[in-house]
């Protein structure tokens, strides 16, 4: 009798816990909440939280809880530890985050071993998604903007020569390779490639820009991490009189990150960028998104491409949770995301069923002064851009 009662109690307990598991989905978030990436982490974090808040009814009847871990720096080692702890100690169902590429690269073997869906919300080095079959990317690849920009520079900006300056870490080299390949394919010539220090600290850009200026290119393509690096780039470009020397500063949207743009002021006017998102995009989803953001986080704040990476990433996770009815099986989750379409603030997006990377529009924009603020005016648009690195199977993007 006693034995029977214990068995029944255990069975009941097992039932309730499995029911609880079905209700609650634990998402482990690996972001650099402190240190040099703290600002970026906040943007992605707010993007995720905003999606959950605005779409509370879409999440029901399930519950999504975020377990946040600080990965501290772009070095890789701390991120690896954080991801491992999320998997083994917190038993998360889904992983999310990754601001810096080196962190995503270092985490890849752990993600593969842990066999959990991992949504990359920022890190942009192209071949990251080939490093683990569980990686799905809702942000971008450096090749999206870099490759598109190379072609646009030659065809739309009539540039014949270019100098490329890049921060010397994986996405910087990726950006250089992407730009160079497409720019030279349509007849342009990259006359100099300048590594400009690491991602850990903002260097004095003067010597690098002086070198670029001496080469007198038509365009100066710069990839640096968004944020403080970008602010320093625009400042140095203006201070060295490169605009007056007839050299156009171009790059992916990191150099005109929305959160830094207004502080750059007049120095930013004339910058030309290729990117998948900026807060001035004119579409109904973005209008709603920006409005909700300002209401939630203050009128002086603005979302940017990182915030959208977090927002869309959370939309992907909610889609998975709904499709699988709260029981997140990794293989089924991957299936649910392949070919998933969503009306993002950046325009229509899709997850490529073959590469698990994002397919989206790229916008060519020019910074202009409008009503006393710097405004990003769209001057060109390319629909449904795939990551060219994986499309063309270049270098580390080729399937092994």
């Amino acid at each position: 009798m006693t034995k029977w009662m214990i068995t029944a109690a255990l069975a009941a307990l097992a039932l309730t816990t499995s029911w609880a598991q079905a209700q609650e989905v634990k998402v482990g978030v690996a972001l650099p909440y402190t240190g040099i990436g703290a600002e970026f982490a906040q943007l992605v974090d707010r993007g995720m939280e905003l999606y959950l808040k605005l779409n509370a009814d879409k999440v029901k009847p399930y519950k999504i809880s975020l377990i946040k871990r600080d990965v501290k720096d772009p070095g890789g080692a701390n991120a690896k530890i954080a991801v491992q702890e999320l998997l083994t100690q917190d038993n998360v169902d889904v992983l999310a985050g990754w601001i810096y590429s080196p962190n995503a690269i270092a985490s890849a073997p752990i993600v593969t071993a842990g066999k959990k869906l991992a949504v990359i919300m920022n890190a942009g080095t192209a071949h990251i998604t080939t490093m683990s079959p569980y990686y799905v990317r809702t942000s971008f690849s450096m090749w999206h903007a870099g490759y598109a920009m190379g072609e646009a520079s030659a065809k739309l900006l009539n540039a014949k020569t270019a100098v490329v300056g890049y921060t010397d870490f994986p996405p910087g080299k990726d950006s250089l390779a992407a730009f160079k390949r497409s720019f030279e394919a349509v007849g342009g010539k990259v006359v100099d490639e300048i590594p400009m220090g690491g991602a850990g600290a903002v260097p004095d850009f003067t010597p690098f820009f002086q070198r670029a200026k001496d080469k007198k290119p038509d365009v100066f393509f710069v990839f640096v991490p968004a944020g403080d690096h970008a602010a320093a780039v625009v400042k140095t470009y203006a201070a060295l009189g490169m605009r007056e020397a007839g050299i156009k500063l171009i790059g992916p949207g990191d150099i005109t990150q929305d959160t830094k743009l207004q502080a750059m002021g007049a120095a930013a006017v004339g910058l030309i960028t290729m990117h998948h998102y900026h807060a001035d995009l004119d579409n109904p989803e973005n209008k709603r998104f920006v409005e909700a953001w300002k209401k939630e986080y203050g009128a002086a704040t603005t979302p940017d491409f990182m915030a959208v990476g977090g927002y869309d990433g959370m939309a992907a996770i909610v889609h998975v949770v709904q499709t699988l009815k709260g029981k997140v099986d990794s293989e089924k989750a991957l299936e649910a995301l392949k070919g998933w379409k969503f009306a993002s603030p950046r325009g229509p997006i899709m997850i490529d069923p073959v590469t698990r990377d994002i397919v989206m529009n790229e916008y060519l924009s020019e910074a202009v002064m409008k009503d006393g603020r710097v405004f990003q005016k769209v001057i060109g648009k390319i629909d449904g851009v795939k990551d060219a690195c994986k499309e063309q199977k270049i270098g580390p993007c080729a399937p092994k």
Partner: protein
Amino acid sequence: MTFGVDVASMLLGGVAAGMVLFIVSVGLSVTMGLMGFVNLAHGGFAMLGGYAIALAMRHWGFGFVSALVFGFVLTAAVSAVLERFLYARLYGADELDQVLFTIGLVFMMIASVTLLVGPENQPLTLPPFLRGQLDLGILQYRAYSVVLIAVGIVIVAALWLGFERTRLGAQIRAAVDNRRMAESLGINIARLFTITFAFGSGMAALGGGLGAEFLGLDPQYALKYLVYFLIVVAVGGLGRVTGVFYAALLIGVLDFALKKYVPQGGTAFIYALTILLLLWRPQGLFGARAT
């Protein structure tokens, strides 16, 4: 572009960077030379001063020049208090204790600033007359670099006169050369230490503010550039204003030229050069031979 203009622009850029290094490092050199105190928190004072200057301009309506004065005075005052209550207790301690104490102080400075102001870079907007390009006849160059060089020359001249021609300067030199003899001649060493320390920290603050255009300004500033400041002091020799000046210019120009012509090498060259130089002359290029 002709070779001459190329070299001129490189020299201007390098000398301007060197001036920033000089202004920040001179205080470190004097306090280390005078007190024999390894003050690794010196970069922290530069960071605090830079923050005071940036915040004064943005929130309290200061102009650039008045903010620099404000930053100097505030940082000097804060450091004088710290010197009296904390540093003074460790003057007799061995170097490891001093290093541990000052490194701990740097971490506290970084954490406090992150907590109070935030982790992001503080933009410091220069007044319009310092922005843009200046026509120098043979070439156009960044106006601020040119102004910085002029300011640096005025400061080194003033410091040199102060050290070589005033009573206080003579006392400091005496104390650097032979502290016990200076003390027995009736020089109030404790007071001299406080004044010199406060002045050195004030200079660091000035450098933090003036250099923000090149070096940026964030909580990590305190540690990020410390190595450069220490290199300048090591190469220049302890307690020598002119030595620090030449060393700062040398390092500024070399670093600039190497970054411009061999960017692939990164910062490795400057460290390698420093090692070679110190193997050759351990007392620094311009320091007096140790007795």
